[in-house]
């Protein structure tokens, strides 16, 4: 026993170092696995305040680009208005309303200010100024004026952390606009100006410049949101699939506003799928 105490006394510095290393590494590996880090909720609130201060200055330098992106989005939405479509016969005018009366609401949008954003790190995150109190929950999709941005992975009182598309663990099912073939979109970590898409069958008729949009299979995003355009087609010789390199439609370097997408029916869908799985077993 005495020897044990002597050992501890002699190597107290080294043991202290080991303890701190173990704490740090356990934080790191727990975070990567479950996206739940110790004290991250509290720290998000504190770092969020700093980021907000910084963003209030930095925002002015981006005003022009932000404005342009919002005007483009407005233009796209205005093009879809009913007034733009004139029926040929003035007696029998056919109105196609944008929302059908008997439809059930599935998606609800919340606008959110982006207060922090990185693109240069090996795993990138955004901080948005909307949190639990405003109705943001984990696993909600986030889109921007130009295209998809990421998904919410952690929420504090007034802030939320969004895992960017430029994160090696981000996955979303997307489809080619032309043929409708589904594939998985992910980031290979090489360059922030390209993302990848795999599992596109060779039978698909795909050319460079094709549009890729979100598929209705994912519960994170509504269908037909912009993901990106095809920049390069890489045939995978070991399988019957193509790998595509996409240019993301969102410009991640100057994103100032985003929309948080709340899927109102995701709970119901998940419950049904879970209960089915139980029945089959």
């Amino acid at each position, binding site marked *: 026993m005495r020897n044990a105490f002597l050992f501890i006394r002699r190597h107290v510095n080294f043991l202290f170092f080991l303890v701190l290393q173990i704490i740090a590494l*356990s934080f790191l590996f727990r975070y990567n696995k479950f996206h739940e880090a*110790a004290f991250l909720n509290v720290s998000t609130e504190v*770092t969020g305040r700093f980021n907000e201060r910084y963003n209030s200055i930095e925002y002015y330098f981006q005003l022009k680009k932000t404005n342009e992106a919002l005007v483009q989005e407005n233009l796209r939405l205005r093009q879809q208005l009913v007034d733009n479509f004139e029926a040929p016969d003035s007696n029998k005018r056919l109105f196609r309303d944008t929302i059908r009366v008997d439809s059930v609401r599935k998606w609800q949008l919340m606008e959110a200010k982006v207060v922090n954003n990185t693109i*240069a790190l090996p795993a990138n995150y955004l901080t948005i100024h909307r949190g639990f109190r405003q109705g943001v929950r984990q696993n909600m999709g986030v889109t921007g004026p130009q295209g998809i941005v990421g998904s919410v992975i952690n929420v504090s009182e007034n802030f939320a952390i969004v895992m960017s598309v430029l994160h090696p663990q981000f996955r979303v099912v997307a489809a080619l606009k032309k043929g409708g073939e589904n594939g998985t979109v992910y980031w290979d970590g090489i360059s922030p100006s390209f993302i990848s898409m795999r599992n596109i069958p060779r039978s698909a008729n795909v050319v460079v410049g094709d549009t890729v949009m979100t598929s209705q299979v994912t519960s994170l995003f509504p269908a037909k949101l912009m993901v990106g355009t095809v920049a390069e087609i890489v045939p995978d010789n070991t399988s019957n699939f193509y790998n595509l390199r996409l240019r993301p439609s969102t410009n991640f370097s100057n994103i100032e506003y985003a929309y948080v997408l709340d899927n109102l029916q995701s709970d119901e869908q998940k419950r049904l799928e879970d209960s089915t799985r139980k029945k089959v077993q």
Partner: protein
Amino acid sequence: MSELLKYIIRFILFILVQVFILSHMPPLHRFVTPYLYYLYILWLPFSLSRMSLTFIGFVFGLCLDYFLKTPGLHAAACTLIAYVRPFVIGMLISQEGADKNYIAPSFVSMGWAPYGTYVLVLTVLHHSYLVLLEWMTFGSFVYFVGKVVASTAVSLLLVLLTEALFFRKQKFRTNTI
């Protein structure tokens, strides 16, 4: 200004510079990540005990981690260099007794060659450990070597610039204190 206050202000400044300037720079290449924040640990005074040095390293790294959303990554690397620092200093200035006559490591207190070696060794150590931890989740061996070399080069350039821009005056203290 009291020494303690100076080190607290430095703590905050280094983290803010790393988070809001260096992490926001448009990426040159995926191998190049500019790191400067660990210079804080290299600038800590000689007189700190090894235990408190290790602890400061841990807290400093963890503060940065919560800004960059990588809990534990930089804390682990900072703890390592803070722990190793006294050994490196002991090896480099065993004869001259500079650690008694001066407050903190610098070009003036240690001399050009020992201080340069000191910065180089701890930079390489810090970057290797950091990239090794990243490498465990993704990447290849080329990624590991390339990133350590490229980031070390950029970091050394930044350290040199910082040392030139913010010259730290070092008073010579006699042994009579």
